[in-house]
């Protein structure tokens, strides 16, 4: 993905503004962390923003000075961030705060300065490099690709994405529970009003446009709670990701872990709903018996590609949207000229509006394909 990021920003920044963006980076002077001085730093900046983080950065940056021994002094800071819980499983459960990684250090990587944080939790030294936690051991060692060779503890931290996801859960509850209560209290005789009406449109949309046509009139009702939940969960997280400031801006639905979990749940729901016809088609495909050793694995792999495609589709669409918006904004900083705002702001706005559509469309497609897969598993058809 970093290469992908590099591609996009190379195309945009290097091809269009090569002269302006190719500024030398100096590793031994005062550096304002979080600012962009080169296209490479822009890449890192964008990659950082579409990735998960152990603390929630709200705004501002640190003015730092790097020392020859690898340590970094923070000269001044306007940065505001929220330290989030760090939960590690490393010979037992270890809890800490992301602020415990308080020793800023730097390392040379591809001719650039890369920062990482070091911290001591329960007498064990850990380092956080590109938002991943490693054992310090005898220091940070990188392989030729730039990845640390240090061992890692299992990291179950409540990261920015987890927090953002919890926020979306709270918002969903605040949206739907009062509406549902209203139905219960006022009964069904009253015409729906306000929020109730707005939400009902989408609930009915999921039922009539997604569930009924794909699963069928008879069996759709069982899957409605699941389809409604993934639809609204994905849509809300997509929208929260488009909010450019706290508490939005997290790339939850563009994180492959998030999309993979939802896709795997869809896969499990599909397999557990599969009827006799569905399994017969996989385990006894209508081909000569001699081909079974080839066909059965192919059919089984065929079922696995579906959740994989769901995972990649949502992840790539949402992440690409974030990257394009950030790349347009990055033009201004990469070129160091406010005049570029004349181009990047309208283009960024255009992409943002497009992303509003994509936010809905991807939620719709994920739900729709889930319904379609479930539909093929519960469909009753006569074999020929």
């Amino acid at each position: 993905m970093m290469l992908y990021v590099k591609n996009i920003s190379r195309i945009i920044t290097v091809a269009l503004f090569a002269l302006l963006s190719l500024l030398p980076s100096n590793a031994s002077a005062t550096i304002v962390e979080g600012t962009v001085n080169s296209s490479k730093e822009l890449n890192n900046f964008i990659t950082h923003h579409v990735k998960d983080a152990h603390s929630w950065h709200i705004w501002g940056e640190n003015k730092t000075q790097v020392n020859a021994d690898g340590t970094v002094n923070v000269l001044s800071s306007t940065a505001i961030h929220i330290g989030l819980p760090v939960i590690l499983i490393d010979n037992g459960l270890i809890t800490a705060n992301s602020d415990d990684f308080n020793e800023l250090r730097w390392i040379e990587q591809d001719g650039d300065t890369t920062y990482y944080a070091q911290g001591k939790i329960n007498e064990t030294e850990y380092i956080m490099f590109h938002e991943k936690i490693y054992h310090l051991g005898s220091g940070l060692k990188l392989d030729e690709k730039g990845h640390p060779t240090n061992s890692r503890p299992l990291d179950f931290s409540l990261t920015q994405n987890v927090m953002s996801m919890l926020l979306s859960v709270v918002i969903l509850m605040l949206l739907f529970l009062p509406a549902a209560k209203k139905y219960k209290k006022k009964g069904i005789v009253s015409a729906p009003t306000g929020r109730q009406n707005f939400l009902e449109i989408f609930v009915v949309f999921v039922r009539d446009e997604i569930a009924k046509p794909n699963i069928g009139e008879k069996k759709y009702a069982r899957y409605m709670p699941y389809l409604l939940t993934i639809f609204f969960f994905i849509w809300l997280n997509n929208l929260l990701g488009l909010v450019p400031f706290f508490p939005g801006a997290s790339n939850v639905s563009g994180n492959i872990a998030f999309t993979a979990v939802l896709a795997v749940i869809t896969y499990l729901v599909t397999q557990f709903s599969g009827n006799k016809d569905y399994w017969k088609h996989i385990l006894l495909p209508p081909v000569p018996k001699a081909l079974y050793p080839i066909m059965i694995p192919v059919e089984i792999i065929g079922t696995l590609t579906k959740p994989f495609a769901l995972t990649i589709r949502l992840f790539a669409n949402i992440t690409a949207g974030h990257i394009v918006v950030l790349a347009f904004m990055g033009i201004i900083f990469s070129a160091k000229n406010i005049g570029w705002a004349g181009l990047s702001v309208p283009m960024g706005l255009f992409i943002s509006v497009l992303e509003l559509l994509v936010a809905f469309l991807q939620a719709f497609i994920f739900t729709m394909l889930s319904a379609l897969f479930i539909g093929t598993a519960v469909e009753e058809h006569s074999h020929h």
Partner: protein
Amino acid sequence: MDLIIPSEGLLFWTTIVFVILLVLLRKFAWKPILGAVQTREGNIQKALDSAKDAEERMNALTAQNEDLLKQAREERNVILREAKAAGESMVAEAKESAQKDADRILVSANEQIANERMKAVVELKNQVGKLSLEIAEKILKSELDDKAKQESLVNHLVEDVNLN
């Protein structure tokens, strides 16, 4: 590459959060909302159905009314026609009976006239006979002197008297 390798922490928390969300929303949001929407749609369908039913009944009623009206009109026509026919037949009957009466009266009148005439003729005959007898007596009395004369007279009279 970092971006396409899912982190174990987010996998774990997403699973937990999603399952909790699904359970909560299913119980407290989707069930009441879907139930209410379905019930309302059922009610709307019912209302539409009953409206349609009412319309159908209205239509049936109107049709029935029209039928009744038509029937009544037909009945009236029949009655009128019958009345007319009855009147006509009555007039015809009356005419006929009047004719019959008239005929009968005429016939009896004629008969009476004929009878009266017969009576008159008989009377006349009787009178004439009597008169003739008287005349004959007188003549006989006067003529009996002359026998020849008597006989010629009687013959002559008899010839004359032979009226009828």
